[in-house]
């Protein structure tokens, strides 16, 4: 019995080694393990055996059957794999071919910058306020402590529609509008388009974009302004960024400051981007002037606040090293697709 079984196993192995196709193996499986297969046939003879031999013979045959099954499966897998491999090898394509144009559009660089700035201030609990671009001059100037004949009006050459209606020269009228309708605490940023009568050149445009910020509450100090802008600068330009406040003058803030960030290209050593200064001026800021609070009906004895503003074009141009502002409004897709 044992010999016969060994013989069968050897035969199976022999036949398997000779087979090269999946069909051959399927045939071997039928030949030995099928309903009329050799091993099945032997198994059927068990019943005729003496009961004392039956147990041992049964386990021998079953072992054989399992062994044969597993070597057939093994061989089958190897063959199938090799057939798939062959198919895979024959299916190689030129992956360098581009079939169609890119399917997704690009944000304009100014949107890229603005979205990042918004995210930072929203994270600090600011909401976003907006307002009209054609604006009353009293909100653009008078409400911001810039009465007629104030020399600061000359710094912002204004487009007039009538004597009282203008194109806003800054997004600050939205600050005034917000303070008129909302009680402190106020924490807003104001992004938007603004207009000044500058001729178009590499660094000027009659229309450009600003983001301003305003915080009004009890006990707001200039140190809070410094801390806030420092947090913004570190988040936006990188953890190692330093800021520098320089005294300045704006009619709507007192004290006022211009704010530089350490150059993110050279880290303050001096390079082309910062024109050797090590610092890049990006912000104007200060404590909200009591006249501005008063014009909005906020009691400056109880509340104080800070405001800041920056030009998006300037930040985009320094950040992406764009040397001519006109590119931002040309809308050449070769430019737009870089951002």
């Amino acid at each position, binding site marked *: 019995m044992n010999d016969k079984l060994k013989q069968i196993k050897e035969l199976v192995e022999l036949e398997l080694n000779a087979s090269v196709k999946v069909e051959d193996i399927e045939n071997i499986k039928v030949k030995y393990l099928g309903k009329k297969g050799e091993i099945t046939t032997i198994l059927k003879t068990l019943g005729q055996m003496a009961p004392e031999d039956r147990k041992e013979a049964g386990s021998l045959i079953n072992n054989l059957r399992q062994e044969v099954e597993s070597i057939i499966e093994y061989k089958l897998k190897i063959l199938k794999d090799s057939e798939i491999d062959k198919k895979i090898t024959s299916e190689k394509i030129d992956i360098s071919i581009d079939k169609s144009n890119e*399917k997704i*559009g*690009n*944000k*304009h660089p100014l*949107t890229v910058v603005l979205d990042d700035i918004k995210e930072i*201030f*929203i994270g*600090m609990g600011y*909401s*976003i306020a907006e307002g009209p*671009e*054609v*604006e*009353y001059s009293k909100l653009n100037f008078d409400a911001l402590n810039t009465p007629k*004949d104030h*020399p*600061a009006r*000359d710094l912002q050459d204004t*487009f*007039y*529609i*009538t004597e009282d*209606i203008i*194109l806003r020269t800054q997004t600050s009228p939205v600050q005034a509008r917000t303070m008129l309708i909302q009680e402190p*605490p106020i*924490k807003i940023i104001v992004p938007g*388009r603004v207009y000044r*009568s500058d*001729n178009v050149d590499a660094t000027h445009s*009659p*229309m450009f974009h600003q983001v301003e910020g305003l*915080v009004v509450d009890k*006990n*707001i*100090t*200039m*140190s*809070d302004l*410094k*801390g*806030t802008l*420092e947090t913004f600068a570190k988040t936006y330009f990188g953890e190692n960024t330093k800021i*520098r*406040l*320089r*005294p*300045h*003058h704006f009619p709507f803030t*007192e*004290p006022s400051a*211009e704010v530089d960030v350490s150059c993110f290209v050279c880290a303050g050593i001096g390079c082309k981007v910062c024109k050797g200064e090590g610092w890049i001026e990006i912000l104007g800021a200060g*404590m909200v*002037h009591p006249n501005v609070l008063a014009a909005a009906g906020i009691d400056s004895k109880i509340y*104080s606040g800070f405001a800041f503003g920056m030009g998006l074009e300037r930040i985009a141009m320094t950040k992406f090293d764009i040397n001519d502002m006109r590119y931002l*409004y040309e*809308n*050449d897709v*070769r430019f*737009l697709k870089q951002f």
Partner: protein
Amino acid sequence: MNVSLNWIKEYVKLDDNLEIKEITERLTMSGSKVEKFEKYGTLVEGVYTGLVENIVKHSEDDSFSIVTLNLCDNNYIAVAKIPDIAIGDIVPVALPNAKILGKSVKEDLVKGITSQCMICHIADLGLTKEQFPIVKSSGLISFPKDVKIGVDVSKLLGLGDYIIEFEITPNRSDCLSIEGLAREFAVTFDLECTELWQDKSANLNYVNSIDNISVKVETENCEKYILNVAKNIKIKPSPFEIQLKLMKSGYSVINNIVDITNFVMLEIGQPLHAFDRDILNGEIKVRQAYENEKIVTLDKEERILNNNNMVIADSEKAVAIAGVMGGLDSAISNQTTSVAIESANFIRGSIRNTSKKLLLRTDASAKYEKGLAPELTEHAMNRVCNLINTLGIGTISLDVVNVSNCKQIDFKLNVDYNKINSIVGTDLSISEIDNILNKLNLKVEGSVVTVPYYREDIRIIEDLSEEIARIYGYDKLPSTMPNTAATFGGRTDKQLFEDKIKSLSLSLGFNEIYTYTFFSIDTLKKAISENDKKLYNLVKLENPLSKDFEFMRTTTIPHMLEALERNYSRKNDDVKLFDLGKVFLNAENIIKNELCDEKLHLTLGMYGDNLDFYELKDVVSNILNSFKIETEIVRSGETYLHPGMSADLLVNNETIATIGKLNPKIIQNYTLPENTYIAIIYVDKVYENKVNKIKYKELPKYPTVERDIAFVINEDVLSGDIVKEIKNLNINIVENVTLFDVYQGNQIEMGKKSMAYRIKLRSNDKTLEDTEISAFMDSLFDMLNSKFKAQIRK
């Protein structure tokens, strides 16, 4: 404002070892922003002034001269090639062993003759003609005759000095002067500010007329007018010291009288004007100009004035535009022997308006525009008297005519120490604060501070806080975060919506563009028919930069087409752009002194070989579907679009979007391919109609049945109408109707088209039975027959 550092050093004893970089940085940080600085010449050693006593042409080469120079008793010979040197010139001479630009000067054999010394060219001193304009054309410096012989030229010119350019903020008109800036230097470096001359303005005698001239101020725009007369004047060049300071400050050198008025304006910040006394007729009147009054100004331009302009006039006519520029007739000339000198204070707004309207901005008007303290007028007049006397230019007394419309009183302010600390965010002690205030000449007595007259910018405690903060140092302020009550940050629903519109446009393959929100009428005409009245109702700028920026846009189409055109002309293939921006409507509001309506439009534009109407329709539908908006489609009447290939999408009969191929007639106006498509989505309307409440519908439990049908139909019939009618047949079981084939051509009658649809039927209540399906199909055939005269193809 350009300032010579040496001039400042006459007032403030700055440590000579301080690097210029540190000086300028510290000033910037204390509030006097340095724009840039420039070295004035290079230090030289062994160069002295020498008098040219004799010039002999070289016998062999007459382009060379043998020059005899007198340097305090010692005579030297120089052989030089300087065509415009003349006897009597006082020139810079480098003696043997002099050091110039790092090189040592030696005796040299020039053309066979020993040149004992070298006559310096302007460049040898490191100077340019811009820095030292009074130079001969050869580059030879010939010093004015008051310069002594044998003087060290390095010291004389202050070589190695720095010219610092300051950006002075409009509130600090006091810093538009050497005195003002010297005070800032002193406080920045914690040094004393020396008084260089004794101010005897308190000793000015006020008289009713001087040299028979009386003064009448007839306008409120003049706060103060002081006039004095200097006699026995001889017009000649001013002393070299004055000339040098003017040159270093970027001023032209003219003559002793004009130079002195400019010098005092630089030194003190008060503009002055000198008239030729003998030209003035009778009294001086300060008045508003008459309508169309004419004056020829110093620049030889005739100016036509009106009542908004203030003039200085004599009894006959205007002799100056007040605060802006003097008249040519009364200007100082070489024949002038007697001058009337004005030191006046004018209201800043008046000067600003006149200067703006006349497009005439002068150093004087620039100062007046910022607003000057009236006290400066006396201070400056006194200095003029002082200079005319000490420099021996003429005779002048302290008798002046003084007409004043303003009160000059000391401004006092309470110092609230807590408030200062609470504004700045510091914890400074009273003595620290007092100490800073005293350095700024803000004298504290008790807790009341007296503000000096020249600091008109300090009126409230916030102003004082800024002074404390800047002198204490902005860099030393702590960094803290606002301790506000909790705020709910983030975007509003509308802002989130706009961001989503933008993201959708991007993901549908469109690139974002930014365009100007103003345009010209020609730009509009190019794209939009003039019959479209609504879009020609324009908000007009009163003072546009040019015709190109004259109107606020009512439509985004022109700029979109220009952007597409620019890309097309640059050979960029298959371009898709979007612009999310405002248009400005209802211009008629402006007349009522109300604002116009600002509406947000999303404009999509594209061109490319393989694009068609349906692709753009798909894009727009995708965007609208994102907000669950269902629309009806009708042909569009927009004239800029192809009438056969354009559509309006409606919600409640209101257009929410317009899509189409650009009208070939409009394309003619641009360099654009035929295959150009445009869509506008009226964003505000989309926002109003977006579906905010979403309710879950259970997924279907029963199977669908599909039936395909094909029929021939009139070519004018819209597929959308067919689909709508099929759905209306039985809204409960028609789940979906899809067009899968349209055919026109052979085998189909002219004017007809063959259409094939796949119809999906499903009931939510049960599995549909064959009888129900065939009953539906019969009703469908009947309907197609009766409503559309369709011939069913079986």
